[in-house]
């Protein structure tokens, strides 16, 4: 793999295990076959120690994944450990030795996550559609249970089998044992005393104290009667007698229907991942299915979302563009002001002007949210002499406030980069303009500004992309509010797309979780940002740097 001729032989690993022993310097074959010359390098020891740790952690992870039955994670862990061993113990993988650590993190926490976002965007994942169909059926049957009237009770013993709680009952003189995951089955060699199981091979009978300690576990335990969940399960309330409970819903795998046995209503499985009756009623637990472009249709077409979405999209662009323009103009103006070597104390001015930029963004936003408070804030109370201007609660003023705070936060950055750009302008060009008799204004318009824009435009565009997703500022300052009056979803006038995604996802607890729609909106943002970035890259020819 490494095609670099000069680096083959001793090119092995970043910790430097093999010395300059082999290859191009014409050593004899015997020399080369010797494993190491002289004492073992400390690097080798470090490498072996590190790889031992990696392998140990890997084995631990693999075992844990096996125990949880999580095959996807298991496969990834095996792959990571195998690749790591191959890379660091083979001599043919030099570049990978340097790239692998970062690459592993990148693959798991960025590439996979982005891909997963893409997948979720096409599903109905969220509240009510959280899991697979089998799990949804199971949850529905459990939720809708009732005690079978007139059914017999069983003498019951609580047992612990391999760490899992279970019941041992006696039915028609036969001892049966089961746990939550393992249906009741006959255990012929269990000891039955006075019509009650007292001993079970391979399991311990819980004492009265143990039962009291684990009371809630015992009373919520359901031990299925058979593999068919429709048959019901054994439960207990006093840990001494068990009763049979059956679901009021009857699951028919062949017809793919749920039947409510009390009312006779039939719920059919639909393609959107839930059970629906003929009169349009739905059972409250559904499952995850692919819904195609539905989430995108909701974002653009459903009136609950579409109207706020368009408003928020427009405001996101306005916010990002106005932020860049306002900070750039102020920063440029200040840069020009101090770009005169005759001004005394420039260094002090500059240092003081950087301060807002050195304050972490979240602190600044929180600070301003207090200062702009309508009733008690510094701006209203002191600067405006007790006025009650609704800075953060009026739709337009809130937008103005967001822009104002972002101007305060962002102008020092623009000031810095404009200063840098002005100082690196080629002197001869300016000289030439002077010699040609151009006025100061003309020089500025036709020479300085264009050169300045060329130098700063990539930064302006990345600043745009940054502000496009400036979640912290919006969330900390206004929380997206004031809320839209007409919308049923928790969105507001200063929400930008990324904060809309956050609200829609429901992860902050203000709305029902809707991972599918949130991911679809993420994809929309990604497409916008990627388009803009792609244009930038083309302009700045960054791709051509790769040679």
């Amino acid at each position, binding site marked *: 793999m490494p095609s670099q001729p000069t680096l083959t032989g001793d090119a092995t690993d970043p910790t430097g295990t093999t010395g300059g022993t082999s290859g191009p310097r014409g050593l004899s074959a015997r020399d080369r076959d010797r494993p190491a010359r002289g004492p073992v390098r400390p690097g080798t020891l470090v490498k072996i120690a590190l790889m031992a740790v990696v392998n140990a952690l890997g084995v631990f992870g693999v075992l844990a994944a096996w125990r949880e039955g999580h095959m996807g994670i298991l496969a990834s862990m095996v792959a990571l450990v195998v690749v790591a061993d191959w890379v660091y113990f083979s001599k043919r993988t030099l570049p990978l030795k340097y790239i692998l650590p970062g690459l592993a993190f*990148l693959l798991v926490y960025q590439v996979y996550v982005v891909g997963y976002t893409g997948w*979720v965007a096409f599903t109905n994942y969220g509240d009510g559609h959280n899991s697979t169909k089998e799990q949804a059926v199971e949850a529905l049957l459990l939720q809708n249970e009732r005690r079978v009237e007139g059914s017999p009770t069983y003498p019951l013993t609580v047992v612990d089998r391999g760490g899992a709680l279970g019941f041992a009952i006696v039915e028609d003189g036969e001892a049966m044992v089961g746990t939550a995951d393992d249906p009741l089955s006959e255990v012929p060699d269990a000891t039955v005393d006075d019509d009650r199981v007292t001993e079970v091979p391979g399991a311990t009978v819980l004492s009265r104290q143990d039962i009291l300690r684990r009371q809630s576990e015992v009373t919520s335990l359901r031990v299925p009667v058979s593999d068919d969940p429709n048959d019901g399960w054994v439960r207990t309330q006093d840990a001494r007698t068990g009763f049979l409970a059956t679901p009021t819903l009857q699951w028919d795998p062949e017809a793919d229907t749920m039947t409510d046995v009390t009312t006779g209503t039939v719920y059919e499985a639909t393609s959107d991942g839930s059970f629906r009756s003929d009169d349009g009623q739905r059972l409250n637990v559904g499952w995850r299915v692919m819904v195609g472009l539905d989430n995108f249709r909701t974002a653009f077409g459903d009136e609950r979302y579409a109207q706020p979405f368009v408003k928020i999209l427009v405001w996101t662009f306005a916010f990002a563009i106005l932020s860049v323009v306002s900070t750039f103009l102020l920063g440029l103006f200040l840069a020009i*002001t101090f770009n*005169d070597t005759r001004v005394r104390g420039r260094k002090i001015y500059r240092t003081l002007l950087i301060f807002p930029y050195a304050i972490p963004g979240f*602190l600044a936003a*929180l600070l301003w949210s207090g200062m702009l408070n309508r009733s008690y804030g510094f701006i209203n109370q002191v600067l405006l002499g007790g006025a009650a201007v609704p800075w953060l609660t009026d739709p337009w003023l809130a937008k103005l406030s967001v822009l104002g705070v972002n101007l305060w936060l962002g102008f020092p950055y623009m000031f810095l980069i404009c200063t840098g750009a002005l100082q690196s302008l080629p002197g001869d060009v300016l000289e030439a303009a002077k010699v040609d008799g151009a006025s100061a204004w003309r020089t500025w318009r036709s020479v300085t500004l264009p050169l300045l824009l060329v130098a700063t435009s990539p930064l302006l565009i990345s600043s745009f992309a940054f502000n496009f997703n400036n979640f912290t500022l919006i969330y900390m300052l206004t929380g997206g509010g004031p809320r839209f009056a007409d919308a049923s979803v928790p969105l507001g006038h200063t929400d930008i797309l990324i904060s809309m995604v956050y609200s829609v996802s429901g992860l902050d607890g203000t709305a029902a979780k809707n991972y599918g729609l949130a*991911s679809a909106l993420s994809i929309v943002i990604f497409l916008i940002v*990627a388009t803009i970035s792609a244009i930038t890259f083309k302009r700045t020819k960054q791709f051509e740097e790769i040679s």
Partner: protein
Amino acid sequence: MVTTDVTASSSTAPGPDEHRMPRRRWLAELGWRHLVGVVAVVYALFPIVYVISASLSEGGTLTGSNQLFAQVSTSNYEALGGTLFWTWLGNSLQIAIATGVGTVLMGAAAAYAFSRFRFTGRRVGLTSLLIIQMFPQMLAFVAVFLLLIALGNVVPALGLNSKLALIAVYLGGALGVNTFLMYGFFNTIPRELDEAAKIDGATHAQTYWTIILRLVTPILAVVALLSFISTFGEFIIARLVLQSERNWTVAVGLYGWVSALLEANWGLFAAGAVISALPVLVLFLFLQKYIVGGLTAGAVKG
């Protein structure tokens, strides 16, 4: 960055200098610049002065903080001891430092490989990095959350409510954002140096650790700092991942104070804000010239 002579920089508001220039001309050419400068400095600093004053006010309420420096008391700072603030600050520093160090180590190693070795997949690798960095990790927070739920079932230390998991998530963004910044810088170090070291019998690892890394220290400092600063202020993923109060970072904790009871917690918040701004501020002022260099190379504060 700036070449001002020492004597000139020591005074901020010099009087008109009649020896060199008549007063009218001074006003027209330089005086207005000082006027603008003073206005800009006031604009830039008054919120900072305000928060310092609020942190020193006795009552600790929003209303009570409006009179600047009416009282000077350390009661708010003392009250921080009764909260989880110091735990949060410790968490933030741990997470930000670990992320900063990890980012530098992994980013520099990858940049070295891309800059010095020629291997199959190199161009594809660089191009993919460029494309991947367009997708901010923050955008995929839903998927990050779901991934951590799954991982947490298997290895709790990598799941929700673990600082280690949060660091791992942040490190996932390390390569995409920083490799290019570093790659460009590595390319400016002449290859002859590597070759000379090689001829002297150094392994590639020795070359990397003892020669190249020393020469690229400025870019390492920039990347470590920017990574530290953006991690310190990161909110959205930290909020999702760190669920129990003891594990919160400063950003999550202070947001909790302000969003819950703005009026009553204001003094506490102000004191906490002053303290948590200090590490970043100090780094910034001392390493100004590195940061400015890094900024113009294309990084944006988070």
